[in-house]
């Protein structure tokens, strides 16, 4: 699919699928917020409300055996890479049926069968491993690409720079997807980034870079397809910067005292990627209701599945430390 679709040539049907998937992620994460507030979900959680077009646009451009590494804000990537909502929700409830069997939690979602090498709670923690995965593909002559997701804040940590340098030096099939939402927790871009255009970071390594509007799933999909083709074709890695918006707090429950009061409401009006896509599609009210009903049922089903799941035995904690 990724190879035949080109910018401007994304079919209406495919866009509808994107819409459905983005809505599923949105409703899933809203449910996560609700269940967290109800005290049902342990630990702490980061949702990616507002960033759905990046997860879907990139993951839909992947081929099945491409791999990803994700971040602390991982639910969208995980669903878009093919993990069933039931398994994801079960993980958030700490159940054996979860995608990490209850060992990981929201910040450590794995689904190796579906090419998800893990969400990472250490900012920048996943990038070097993606270089290595891509190196393995190159060694074995496999036409696969390894993709790292990370935030704008992560471009300030050493692993980002070391990984990009190494990836370019070795010309491995990797794509680095920066979800540039303008915030690292409470720290705005101007307090952490001395430059505006993060795609320039790639210049220092001689790496190909693209910067796209991350609220437009079609644009993300097109750019990701191109980047993946570049990497898969042996032309080296690509940095893909997607400008996006965190239409929510850093974590669920974040009072966002640091954020201008009206900013969020305004951005929710103007920068919602799902609204944007729906405006572009010829969806009738009936279509919308139908898709809505379908995803809500899936999400409700995932909560039921998770709640009916099995708690690990305490002693299970001793397993899986060594292979």
């Amino acid at each position, binding site marked *: 699919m990724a190879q035949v679709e080109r910018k401007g040539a994304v079919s209406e049907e495919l866009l509808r699928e994107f819409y459905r998937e983005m809505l599923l992620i949105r409703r899933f994460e809203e449910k996560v917020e609700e269940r967290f507030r109800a005290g049902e979900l*342990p*630990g*702490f959680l980061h949702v990616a409300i507002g960033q759905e077009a990046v997860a879907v646009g990139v993951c839909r451009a992947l081929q099945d055996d491409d791999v990803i590494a994700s971040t602390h804000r991982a639910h969208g990537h995980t669903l878009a890479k093919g993990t069933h909502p039931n398994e994801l929700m079960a993980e958030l409830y*700490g*159940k054996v049926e979860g995608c*990490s069997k*209850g*060992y*990981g*939690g*929201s*910040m*450590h979602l794995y689904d190796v069968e579906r090419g998800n090498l893990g969400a*990472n*709670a*250490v*900012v*920048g*923690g996943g990038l070097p491993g993606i270089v290595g995965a891509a190196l393995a593909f190159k060694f074995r002559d496999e036409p696969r690409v390894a993709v790292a997701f990370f935030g704008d*804040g*992560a471009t*300030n*940590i*050493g692993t980002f720079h070391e990984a990009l340098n190494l990836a370019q030096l070795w010309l491995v099939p990797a794509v680095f997807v920066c979800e540039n939402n303008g915030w*690292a*927790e*409470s*720290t705005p871009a101007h*307090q*952490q*980034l001395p430059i505006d255009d993060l795609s320039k970071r790639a210049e220092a390594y001689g790496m190909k870079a693209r910067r796209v509007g991350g609220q437009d799933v079609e644009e993300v999909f097109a750019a990701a397809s191109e980047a993946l083709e570049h990497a898969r074709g042996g032309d080296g890695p690509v940095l893909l910067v997607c400008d996006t918006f965190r239409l929510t707090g850093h974590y669920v429950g974040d009072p966002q*005292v*640091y954020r201008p009061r009206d900013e969020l409401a305004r951005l929710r009006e103007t920068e919602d990627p799902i609204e944007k896509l729906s405006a572009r599609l010829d969806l009738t009210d009936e279509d919308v209701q139908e898709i809505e009903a379908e995803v809500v049922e899936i999400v409700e089903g995932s909560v039921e599945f998770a709640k009916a799941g099995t*708690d*690990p*035995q*305490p*002693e*299970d*904690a*001793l397993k899986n*430390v060594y292979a």
Partner: protein
Amino acid sequence: MPELSYREAVRDALSQAMRQDDDVFILGEDIAEMGGSMGVTQGMLDEFGPERVRNTPISEMAIVGAGIGAAMQGMRPVVEVMYEDFTTLAMEQIVNQAAKHRYMSGGQLKVPLTIRTQGGAGWSPGAQHAQQLEAWFVHVPGLKVVFASTPSDVRGLLWSSIYDDNPVMFFEHRTLYGIKEDVPEELEPIPLGQARIHREGEDVTVVATGRLVHEAIAAAGEAEAEGVSVEVVDPRTLLPLDEATIVDSVKKTNRCVVAHEAVTRMGFGAEVAAIVQHQAFDYLDAPIERVGSRFVPIPFAPVMEEWVVPHSNDVLAAIRQTVGRSESSNGAGHVE
């Protein structure tokens, strides 16, 4: 005597130092507008401004390193590393630079840097946000290591750390920020290397750190009801260590338990056990028991996490073990 929470006590020590001394400043991720991920530095931006309450990019290695550089120029920076799990990213600067500049320069330089960090399990953050790594740093000559367990301790020890001329790793425990204690009206510095005896007792000495101090105090109460008198000692500073207080206590009680949340293997308790057996060998009536987390990463699911980390019942089981009443022990997995 005012009552302060542990969180307020940290803030108070930082603020007082910054009020009296322009050389003290703080830097770290999200410490300004948000007041730190644990709310410790809330309000400090308003009082001291963005130059002295410096929000940083996510660059642990560089911010610790910048702290080292400023310290070598005679300032007294306090770096906040959001979670102790992330001290791993700054390890090079801490271990090879901060700890060694004085030595390598033949005594020309000093590095009066404080690195505050926090961590610990008990709230299911998962394996990368719940570790207890304090023992790693005790292995490094040139560093000092503090682990404060109460509001008055954290206040007095932080002050001494800021004014110590050496790099200090200053550990706080995530689950302690809300606890309250009466603290002295005037901040009283607590010298580094001075233990605190929380509770006197005759039969068993429990040497505990961090959250386990509170678990040990609870266990001591229960042991008392069983007729076992327990002395609880918190070293407070792991490096330098107040060996005399610990050894004297064991010479009195003849039994010793060491307890911390970190895994027992190569843990701080192993060091205490070595010191006690060497300096009080003839006084010991029972093997020294160690209480700590099981040797696994911290799992996410609450039932597993709860089982992995030690609680007061594990300390109690260890106490019973030392007095030969281990039949009723139910937490023996934590005791080595």
